[in-house]
């Protein structure tokens, strides 16, 4: 009857094993897809330089191996990737791995803050709305959530910049830190936090409504379940019911969504990072697409796949922790 120790390691290995073909599929697909786009990175570079003569352009193309056939390029890329070599970005003149490393922090920070904010506020508001279902409070919360969801993030971002940076002067318009501040320690943390307030708000307000709605529905559903009635028959009060009996079960579907949303949020961060000039992966991905910076984009997609695999794994762990019925197999 006792719970066997979850064989986490073998589970992790198996997940990884399953992920490999998916990742290979993604990489090849992305590569070929981007190759379909008109123009290549040399076009983008030359456009950026303000022009160059034809001989120079040919030389660059040969230099970057872009004169080879697509399949040769793909083969070379995949062979390198197998050795975890992401190649060189001709646009950034740096190894892709370094670019990614530079950007990863910001993106993870932004996502962690926005997702956790969206998640926390979403489930709290969702639970409140569900407990007062169909009341004024519920309508207010639900409608507000929907309005945030319906507001395009760029619109919201611009409005916030106008209000908080330009009119009130409370928050910086963008960037991840005060460049000339040279803060260290807690001052640095506080500075970064100040810079993250608006982007986090812009990003999390969209996703907030997902969690809110799901949590509301989930709580309503769980509250109807038999064991809640059992607990009531035992003499448990509403608060106790919520905390001990409803919350944890209601959280399960919400947690699943959390895992699924990760790559969506990365996509959503493209616009927000662009407006707030946050040096993250979203903005980099956008730049890589319009610069045809194949290696960088591929690197981002690869990294993203890994993160998604890891996040899904962690979600599973969390799920297994929350749900005693689940045993990792």
């Amino acid at each position, binding site marked *: 009857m006792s719970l066997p120790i979850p064989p986490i390691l073998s589970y992790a290995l198996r997940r990884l094993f399953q992920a490999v073909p998916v990742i290979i599929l993604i990489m090849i697909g992305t590569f070929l897809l981007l190759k379909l786009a008109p123009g290549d990175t040399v*076009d983008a570079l030359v*456009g950026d330089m303000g022009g160059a003569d*034809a001989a120079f352009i040919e030389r660059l193309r040969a230099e970057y191996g872009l004169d080879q056939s697509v399949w040769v390029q793909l083969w070379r890329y995949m062979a390198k990737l197998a050795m975890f070599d992401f190649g060189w970005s001709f646009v950034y*003149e740096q190894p892709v791995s370094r670019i990614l490393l530079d*950007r990863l922090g910001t993106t993870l920070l932004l996502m962690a803050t926005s997702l956790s904010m969206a998640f926390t506020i979403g489930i709290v508001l969702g639970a409140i709305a569900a407990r007062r279902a169909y009341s004024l409070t519920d309508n207010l919360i639900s409608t507000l959530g929907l309005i945030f969801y319906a507001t395009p993030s760029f619109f919201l971002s611009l409005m916030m910049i106008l209000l908080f940076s330009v009119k009130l002067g409370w928050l910086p*318009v963008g960037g991840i830190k005060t*460049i000339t501040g040279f803060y260290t320690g807690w001052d640095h943390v506080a500075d970064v936090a100040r810079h993250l307030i608006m982007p986090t708000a812009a990003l999390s307000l969209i996703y907030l409504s997902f969690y809110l709605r799901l949590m509301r529905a989930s709580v309503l559903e769980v509250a109807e379940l038999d064991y809640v009635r059992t607990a009531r028959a035992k003499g448990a009060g509403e608060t106790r019911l919520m905390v001990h009996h409803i919350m944890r079960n209601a959280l399960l579907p919400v947690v699943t969504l959390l895992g699924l949303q990760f790559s969506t949020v990365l996509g959503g961060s493209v616009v927000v990072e662009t407006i707030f000039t946050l040096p993250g992966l979203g903005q980099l991905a956008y730049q890589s697409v319009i610069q045809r910076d194949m290696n960088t984009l591929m690197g981002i997609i690869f990294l993203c796949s890994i993160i998604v695999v890891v996040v899904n794994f962690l979600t599973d762990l969390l799920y297994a922790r929350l749900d005693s019925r689940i045993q990792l197999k």
Partner: protein
Amino acid sequence: MTKTLSILYAAAAGCIGLGLAANPLLAQEEVKKGGTAIIHMVSEQRILNPALRASTGVYEISGKIIEPLIDKSYDGYVPVLATEWATSEDGKKITLKLREGVKWHDGEAFACDDVAFTAIEMWKGLLNYSSALQANLESVDCPDPHTAVFNYSEPMPLELFVAAMPDLGHPVPKHLYEGTDILKNEYNTAPVGTGPFKFVEYERGQYVMAERNEDYWRDGYPYLDRIVWRFIADKSAAGAALEAGEVHESGFIGVSMADVERLSTDDRFDVGTKGYENNVAHSTVEFNHRNPILADVNVRRAIHHGLDIDFAIKTIMRGFAKPGRGPVPSVGGANYTDDVRTYPYDVELAKKMLDDAGYPVKDDGFRFKLRHRPAPWGEYTQLWGEYFAQAMRVIEIDVELLNNDAPGFLNGVYRDHDFDTANGWHQFRSDPAVSTMVWLRSGLPEGSPWTNQFGWKNEEIDELIDAAASELDVEKRAEMYHEIQRRAMEELPVIFAIEHPFISVTNKKLKNHHNTPRWNSSSWYDLWLDE
């Protein structure tokens, strides 16, 4: 010429003139040392080696770190790392005296070896635009560490050489590049130069920082402690950053035209076109002459008549522009003439010309349809493209806009020639020789952007272009360019519709700003901050 421009633009937006006029008074103030200037840049530069990449964006940053041999001031060319220049009689040897006592930021001495290495390895082979200029460069000799002799196989006019140096003449330290893969050398993104500021760090997607070079060869300079270039791609956000005091200057129209107009009435800012005297651009409409309809000059003329240029200037450029007069802009000095055919806005005339050309209105309400590629270079090229479509529909020409990102656009227009019309934004390249050449000369290799890839061919103009390039008599040369300009306006291979200056928005706390003709690219050794 600077004056005419200023007056003109002052007329367009009254306050700018005031801003400029106020400058001399402020110059009397006592210089304050120290401080950090924060400069806005729209796009990230990534490569910071001006010996590998010739573009204003690169100069904007690296110009403070890596100095050119020769720079340009309002009084002409001035020595920087080269102190004297001379040419041999046959024009095949150019000898430069190099400044002594100059050190690279890493402490090594600057010497002729560096110039020779950079010239052969980079200027000649790897630098865009320069490879054509230096095609005939055979070697660079160093008779002593402070003398460099450029040997050419064909005569190289000294003026051309000198004129090219501010942009295409940045030496880099040989000892950091020799024996490495130059294109992947780490110093390309962490430049080491001789300039007033030393490179500190480049945070991708955020900023580049440079700090005061204590060993700068100009004693007592620079004034600033630090310069930070901040990348803000979103122009509205950049406008907000300027207002919030988070950046001090935004050059090359880094904020939206609406904000330019708005900030020009704001006491805190100088808004003006000073410092871009060599830099103007044209908003163009380009025709694909392979399309038989557009091959008809009367159709092109009718299209020009259908464009309300004044309206476009007023609305899209907020008055900060003037109608174009062909490939040579009004800042082209003696080579410019305004004695050319013009195409006033006249819808009825345009319609009549199209009728006469054999393109009557058909049942669907249009004469014919054009597939138009608007350049994706931001707000005004986009609006200009949309205005083109709007205006064409008035004269019953249907226009389908084909929107693409930059590589898609360049590819569609310059390589695949998959378009009927396109619009763009083209910078005038300091000398009409270059600009007329790339725009009007036929027979250019396929695929290079911003050149005549439109299938336009006119042998007389080809001959004129070639003749003007080799003409040594200044007056004759000017006359030839006038003729090219007149013919270009007559034949309209391209509509050079609007001539734009570049505009800077500068916080008035910055002093000594915009005091040279290529100020944003210059070294800013005398810039200071009143804070």
